[in-house]
């Protein structure tokens, strides 16, 4: 005992690590973990996404202690949180806007991957796990939006669950099974609450797999070339921990600005009207992060076709590693792809704008053109581009990008 006095804390850690190697695991994957030294700020968004997931889980658990999942009480229990629970308004506004920021951060993270070809070999499964996280997030966010039981909660739930009635033969049965009855009602609300509580923990599980897959081959980088040796890497800590903290500071400043000064900006006023099954709102719109997919759904004149198109818009991402035939990862060295990336981004934003508009007049035409382009980009342009595009010469290594010329 006396011998160890000077080095007490370390020996405790060693004692633990000898029996349960969590210390060396952390050291391996969050401290020494070799990272390309040329990552730019777009690589901040992965850790930010993880941060917002944690924020959502923590604030969500706090809210669940005061929320009542019953059609007669849900709306007023939210108002109870906003008025009577200590700092309830803050917790609820953080949770509400946290969902939006989680999506903003994840969408930027995805577009980062698209630009720098992060989905290409050997990172296909890493990409797949990311898409699964996105799908789970969408399900979670959709069910969370139903819980306040406002007008948009109710009618959004009605529209989206009704999509399943497009399935031939069994559609009606599936919808009633989802509802637990003959319309969106109390059984629907209470199962959505259960699943809204459960799914985030599944997301945590998939995030762990996402990180394991990431750490197997390491991060991609802005040049999109593999690291040639230790001179191309730096340890994660302190270099990227401090950079991530700086990014987090910027993100939190923007986030809390919205939370404190415009907390309802990203929401819809109709959701402060209690749900009324007898009164349909003039325009039913989903939360902003679903709008591009909502536009694709409505671009197809046939209900089943629309549903298939909407789901395909995400499932096509699973095929992306093989649809993109180019051997070069980063758009930096792909002049045509670089241009088309921005065209695709604008197309996605146009889809979002169309999703917020009523399906009438020229909005329908624009929606159809934008939807067609979405799929043309993935299914026609990307496979062909790999064969025709003349790429710029790649640098020989991350440390000596100039030598390539």
């Amino acid at each position, binding site marked *: 005992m006396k011998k160890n006095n000077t080095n007490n804390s370390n020996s405790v850690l060693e004692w633990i690590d000898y029996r349960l190697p969590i210390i060396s695991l952390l050291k391996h994957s969050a401290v020494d973990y070799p990272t390309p030294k040329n990552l730019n700020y777009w690589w901040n968004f992965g850790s930010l996404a993880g941060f917002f997931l944690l924020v959502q889980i923590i604030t969500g658990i706090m809210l669940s202690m005061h929320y009542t999942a019953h059609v007669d009480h849900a709306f007023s229990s939210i108002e109870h949180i906003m008025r009577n629970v200590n700092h309830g308004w*803050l917790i609820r506004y953080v949770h509400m806007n946290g969902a939006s920021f989680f999506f903003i951060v994840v969408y930027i993270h995805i577009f980062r991957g698209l630009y720098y070809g992060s989905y290409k070999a050997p990172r296909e499964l890493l990409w797949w796990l990311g898409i699964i996280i996105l799908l789970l997030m969408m399900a979670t966010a959709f069910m969370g939006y139903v819980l306040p039981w406002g007008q948009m909660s109710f009618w959004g739930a009605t529209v989206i669950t009704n999509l399943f009635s497009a399935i031939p033969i069994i559609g009606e049965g599936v919808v009633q099974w989802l509802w637990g009855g003959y319309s969106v009602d109390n059984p629907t609300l209470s199962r959505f609450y259960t699943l809204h509580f459960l799914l985030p923990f599944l997301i945590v599980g998939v995030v762990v797999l996402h990180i394991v897959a990431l750490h197997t081959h390491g991060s991609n980088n802005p040049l999109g070339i593999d690291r040639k040796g230790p001179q191309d890497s730096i340890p994660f800590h302190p270099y990227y921990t401090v950079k991530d903290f700086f990014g987090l500071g910027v993100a939190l400043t923007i986030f809390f600005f919205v939370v404190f000064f415009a907390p309802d900006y990203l929401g819809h006023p109709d959701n402060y009207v209690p749900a009324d099954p007898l009164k349909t709102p003039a325009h039913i719109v989903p939360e902003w992060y679903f709008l591009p997919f909502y536009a694709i759904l409505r671009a197809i004149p046939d209900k089943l076709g629309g549903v298939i198109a909407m789901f395909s818009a995400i499932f096509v991402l699973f095929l992306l590693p093989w649809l993109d035939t180019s051997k070069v990862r980063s758009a930096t060295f792909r002049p045509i792809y670089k241009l088309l990336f921005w065209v695709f981004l604008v197309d996605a934003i146009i889809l979002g704008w169309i999703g917020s508009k009523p399906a009438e007049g020229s909005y329908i035409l624009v929606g159809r053109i934008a939807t067609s382009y979405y799929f043309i980009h993935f299914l026609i342009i990307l496979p062909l581009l790999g064969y025709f595009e003349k790429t710029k010469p790649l640098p020989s290594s991350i440390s000596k990008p100039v030598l390539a010329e």
Partner: protein
Amino acid sequence: MKIILFTIIFTTLFIQALFSASDGLKPMKYNFSFDGILGSLDKNSAQRGLQVFTEVCAACHGLNHLAYRSLEDIGYNKSQINNIAKQFLIDDIPDENGEIKKRNAIYSDKFVNPYPNEEAAKVSNNGAYPPDLTLIVKARKDGANYLRSLLLGYEDAPEGVDVGEGYYNKYMPGNIIAMPQPLYGDDVEYQDGTVATLEQEVIDVVTFLTWTAMPELEKRKSSGIKVIIFLLIMTFFFFLSYKKIWKDVK
């Protein structure tokens, strides 16, 4: 870089355009005491608004989510609040004979509804349900401006417009509203001596209803300033550390 800038501008415009779908005229802008980052609630105005609400609006509209005790936020003390509450009768808990008697409301009760239920409200109002007003400012786009415009926006229906049982108001989506013009000026005699013009009454009641919708507004904005200042300083120090640690890389 230009493309990024373009994308950002486009996205902002798109988010602003999101919820502009409505048939009513765009509300007139007014500079309320609670607007802006440093805005705070004019408590005298909110108290006058409570008077307008109690003497006019409360004939048909409720404030379901609000408790009398919350009135402390706009500057009343407990005995004043008890005096306000006791004007209203509320169902007591069943007594020893199992009968439910009425009693005067007190400090801890919620605002008493003018009607016992939605059906009773509808039958007294030509089948239209006067909505609960606790959250009305949040439940309408640009709520405070909308409400002010609506209350000032009653007009005779133009030639050829059939309003049926309703009234013409150009700020109402669809331009026909079931509620007759509620305020004309001089509807109340303000306890603090302020002249009760129509404009004054409207601003006061909108201020009051903004408070009922967002009782946290003042606290939110004042803590917001502190949090943002803290975050800016913290972020600045993270930036310095980042630059220092990365100095030797390359």
